[in-house]
C-alpha cells in the first residue's frame, strides 16, 4: 500500500509541472492567475496526502487554512484586472 501512495504522489507532481509550464508560457496575466489557482487547489490534496503518509493528525490543519485563505489572493488579483478593487 505504500507504493500506491508514492505513485499517486508522482502523478500529482506531474500535474503540478504541467500547470507551472502554463504559468511560464501564458501570454496574458489572466492565464497566469488561472495556473496559480489550479496549483493552489492541487497543493491542498498534496498536503492531505502527505499528512496521511506521515501519519499525523495535526498536519491537516495546514490544509484547512489553505482551503479557507487560498482563494483571497486570486480574488484580489481578479478584482484588480477588472478595474475595481
Amino acid at each position, binding site marked *: 500500500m*505504500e507504493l500506491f501512495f*508514492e*505513485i499517486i*504522489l*508522482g502523478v500529482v*507532481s506531474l500535474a*503540478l*509541472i504541467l500547470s*507551472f509550464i502554463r*504559468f*511560464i508560457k501564458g501570454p496574458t*496575466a489572466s492565464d*497566469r*492567475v488561472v495556473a*496559480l489557482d489550479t*496549483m*493552489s487547489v492541487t*497543493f491542498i490534496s*498534496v*498536503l492531505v496526502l*502527505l499528512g496521511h*503518509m*506521515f501519519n*499525523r493528525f*495535526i*498536519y491537516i*490543519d*495546514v490544509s484547512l*487554512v*489553505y482551503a479557507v*485563505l*487560498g482563494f*483571497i*489572493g486570486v480574488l*484580489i*488579483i481578479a478584482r*484588480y484586472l477588472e478595474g475595481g*478593487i
Partner: protein
Amino acid sequence: MNIFTVILVVIGAIFMIVAAIYAISRKDLLVATIATSIISLVLSVFFFILQAPDVALTEATIGVALTTIIFVVTIRNTKRHEEEEE
C-alpha cells in the same frame, strides 16, 4: 523519506528558482506578484515536509493572502508596468 517525496522536493526547488528569476526579470509587476505567491506556496510545502506545521501555517497565511493584497494595492496606487532604463 522515500523516492517520490524526494522527487516532489526537487520539483519544488526548481519551481522556486524559476519563479524567483521570473519575478525579478519581468517588466509587468502584476506577474511578479503572482510569481511571489507561487514561491510562498511551495515554501509552505517545504516547511510541511521538514516537520514544522506551525511555521507552514504562518507562511501560508502571510505569504498567500497578506503579501498579495499589499502588493496589489501598491500597484494600483502607482503603476503596473516598469519603465525601460535609458
